[in-house]
């Protein structure tokens, strides 16, 4: 079969594009080398919806950031995912930095960011009591927000899938070319796929695919960022997202509550070449603890950290989103260099890329497209009566599996059985938060494995953390094997 469009990559850009394209009468599929959506850059970032004052005036990045931010409220509602505009503060700790703040304000206004204002010392410390004493002024952006990057990515992909887009996991695009009839052939580890158009949403690998077919080459640098996530006990340490002044390496090390009530600190910014090197380093963690401490007081990172991780930004040399059809490769549409504010921009990126593809294919719109999705039920906000009603209907909601985050079996079953359902521990974790709490899956992983085994028939010794070779418990014990050595 020949697809109308194949999207390489089921990250947040690819999934947003898939959802937008699912509005049309088109055969669309997404090829993802990971075992799940949201397996690369989209899974390890600050989880911030940026206001849009950072990106250069007139840049595509600025435009899509502000548009994406504006779209996020409605999208979060349609997809039933939590989102909050907690507001962001760019804090300066030296009087001499105030000029930079004004520049940022001017840029923000030029970019179309609404309600920006500069707050002075007294008001600032009232807004954020834990700021460092030296904090003397800040740029306040009430439109800045926090969101769960997993949920946004997963929800868009799920909704695309329900509206007819196929997703092929563990399917790595290796090579592609266009034949004389204008059909694109994508070679993968799972055979060849044919399509009229290709969307290159391959994250840190987007330069590889671009450079296979483009005259003008691009270069993506994986820019590693280390993060620490702190216990929910620290979730109220900051109300807003607190940034330092930006530098040419990025927006700096932020301190922010997360939408789920933790506190996140990071990222560092280190340019590397290895596109798979998501290992944290001791230097990185030390660096971020030191720098975060410059803007807030008494942040107990080392005592309250529950996990640390590193993500890779797909940094294009010109620090600009590369979106568009290549003239020399008709039907090949780039969605490359998507680094911060990529998560924020993703709804606008999806729309823009889908418009380009639609411009090529000229499809008609589906009559029955349904852009609404019901998320995994989160009973934690329910009254006792509502919970009892729910448990009566489905007793699995009465059985807590993850103690730290109070996640029930019902939520895990939903995560496994819904479209593009979870098949691994991380898949369950990103959809439900089971295993994301302070014990970091110590208690619940054997029980989640048991549920995956029961529901999907995957033998326990084949269950993975996140696909591939990440098997948790590869063999039966001697006792289970019948006592032989």
């Amino acid at each position, binding site marked *: 079969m020949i697809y109308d469009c194949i999207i390489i990559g089921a990250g947040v850009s690819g999934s947003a594009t898939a959802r937008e394209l699912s509005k049309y009468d088109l055969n669309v599929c997404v090829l993802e080398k990971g075992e799940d959506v949201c397996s690369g850059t989209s899974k390890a970032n600050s989880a911030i919806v940026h206001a849009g004052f950072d990106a250069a005036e007139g840049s595509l990045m600025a435009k899509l950031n502000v548009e994406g931010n504006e779209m996020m409220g409605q999208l979060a509602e349609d997809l039933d995912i939590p989102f909050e505009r907690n507001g962001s503060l760019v804090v300066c700790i030296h009087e001499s930095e105030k000029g930079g703040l004004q520049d940022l304000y001017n840029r923000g206004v030029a970019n179309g960011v609404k309600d920006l204002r500069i707050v002075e010392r007294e008001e600032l410390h009232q807004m954020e009591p834990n700021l460092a004493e030296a904090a003397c002024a800040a740029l306040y952006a009430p439109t800045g927000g926090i969101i769960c990057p997993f949920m946004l990515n997963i929800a868009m992909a799920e909704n695309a899938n329900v509206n007819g887009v196929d997703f092929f996991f563990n399917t790595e695009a290796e090579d592609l070319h266009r034949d004389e009839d204008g059909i694109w052939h994508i070679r993968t580890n799972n055979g060849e796929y044919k399509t009229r158009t290709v969307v290159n949403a391959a994250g840190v690998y987007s330069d590889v695919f671009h450079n296979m077919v483009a005259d003008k080459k691009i270069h993506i640098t994986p820019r590693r960022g280390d993060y620490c996530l702190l216990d929910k006990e620290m979730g109220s340490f900051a109300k807003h997202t607190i940034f330092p002044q930006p530098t040419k390496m990025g927006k700096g090390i932020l301190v922010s509550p997360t939408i789920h009530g933790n506190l996140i600190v990071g990222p560092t910014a280190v340019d590397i070449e290895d596109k798979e090197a*998501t*290992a944290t380093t*001791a230097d990185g963690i030390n660096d971020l603890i030191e720098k975060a401490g410059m803007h807030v007081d008494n942040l107990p990172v*080392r005592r309250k*950290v529950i996990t640390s991780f590193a993500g890779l930004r797909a940094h294009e040399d010109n620090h600009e989103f590369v979106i568009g059809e290549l003239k020399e490769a008709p039907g090949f549409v780039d969605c490359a260099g998507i680094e911060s504010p990529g998560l924020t921009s993703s709804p606008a990126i999806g729309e823009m890329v889908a418009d380009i593809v639609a411009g090529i294919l000229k499809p008609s719109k589906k009559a029955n497209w349904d852009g609404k999705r019901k998320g995994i039920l989160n009973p934690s906000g329910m009254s006792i009566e509502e919970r009892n009603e729910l*448990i*009566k209907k489905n007793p699995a909601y009465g059985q807590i599996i993850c103690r730290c985050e109070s996640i029930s079996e019902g939520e895990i079953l939903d995560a496994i059985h819904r479209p593009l359902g979870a098949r691994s521990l991380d898949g369950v974790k990103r959809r439900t938060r089971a295993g994301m709490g302070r*014990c970091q899956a110590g208690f619940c992983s*054997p029980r989640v494995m048991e549920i995956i085994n029961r529901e999907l028939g995957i033998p326990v010794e084949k269950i993975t953390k996140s696909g591939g070779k990440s098997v948790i*418990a590869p063999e039966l014990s001697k006792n289970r094997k019948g006592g032989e050595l």
Partner: protein
Amino acid sequence: MQSYDIVVIGGGPAGLAAAAEAKKAGVDSILILERDHELGGILNQCIHNGFGLHTFKEELTGPEYAQRFMDEVFKLNIEYKLNTMVMDITDTKVVTAMNKTDGMFQIQAKAVILAMGCRERPRGALNIPGYRPAGIFSAGTAQRLVNIEGYMPGREVVILGSGDIGLIMARRMTLEGAKVKVVAELMPYSGGLKRNIVQCLDDYGIPLKLSHTVVDIEGKERVEGITIAEVGPDMKPIPGTEEHYSCDTLLLSVGLLPENELSKTAGVELSGITSGPIVNDSLETSVEGIFACGNVLHVHDLVDFVSQEAANAGRNAAKYVKEGSKPATKEIKINAVDGVRYTVPVTVRPNEMDDTVTVRFRVGAVYKNSAVAMYFGDEQVLKRKKQIMAPGEMEEVVIKKEELAKHPDISDITIKIEQA
């Protein structure tokens, strides 16, 4: 709303002993709430022997030890609910819990006994750099996989931390056919019991490297190798001392944390050192009528002491239920200084206390040929020489009511480590 005289949160060794003792002290209306599908708590996965030497004068396995207390609870007809998660406790002792059959329900208790146990410190809390692949387990999770579920977490193992569960798992994995290459311990001494080092490492030729830590984890999908390095007195790795081990598994035994999230919902005041509730000699917390015992109070080495402590909590909770609230006429603070990290309890009530109160504590470093000393005010009332004291082994002193009565004017008791 249902009501019970005593609700016990947790059906592990502490909860079972507390409930049994409360019943024997004359309280009939008792309910144990247990989150797992069976009573016994973590003992069910501790299939090695060595339990019960103090209590029963014989060596039992964990499940055998638990069974004795379960049998007693059954014999005493104490009610319990399994697969039941307590979601909230208020300072007025309303317990909110949930399970599949009862749904979410609330109980008004006259007294609550906290017996939730502890959890393991995970990798994330240590900031160990490197990848985050499969194959990194806390020792207790690995123990559950092997002993309860019947799966092997891996074949070639490095262990970080020499807590007791880590030591036990070094032996267990070896007996299961795995190769345990090294146990690295950050501190210059082990956090586990001496007998476990001998029986679980020395007997199998497993090296223990003190003052070492993990500095890198290799492998993006599954652990492929671990690098350890020696640390200096500042606990920072010393460059040039790195040693690489190829392996597929990293087990962590780097500390246990009393699990007090529920205690916090009730407003129970916690110690910054033990992370457990601050209690008086009756093991009552800062919230009247809420008692605590076992590993939720402070982490123990031996379950025998958990059972003893829990029985005290049960008896005192029963007394509270029967006699009602009786504010202490006087409270004396116990100071933990000079090598004594903390004490449980933190205060004693000289007039209301039992005839004897056992005060348990840990030392902060290894002490050789030293002595434990106790002072009532300025007067030394005890000096007990010990050849060796280590943080991995809990110490105790006993305060006698009779003796304390001879010092009516003191405002504090001090326990410290002195030269022998």
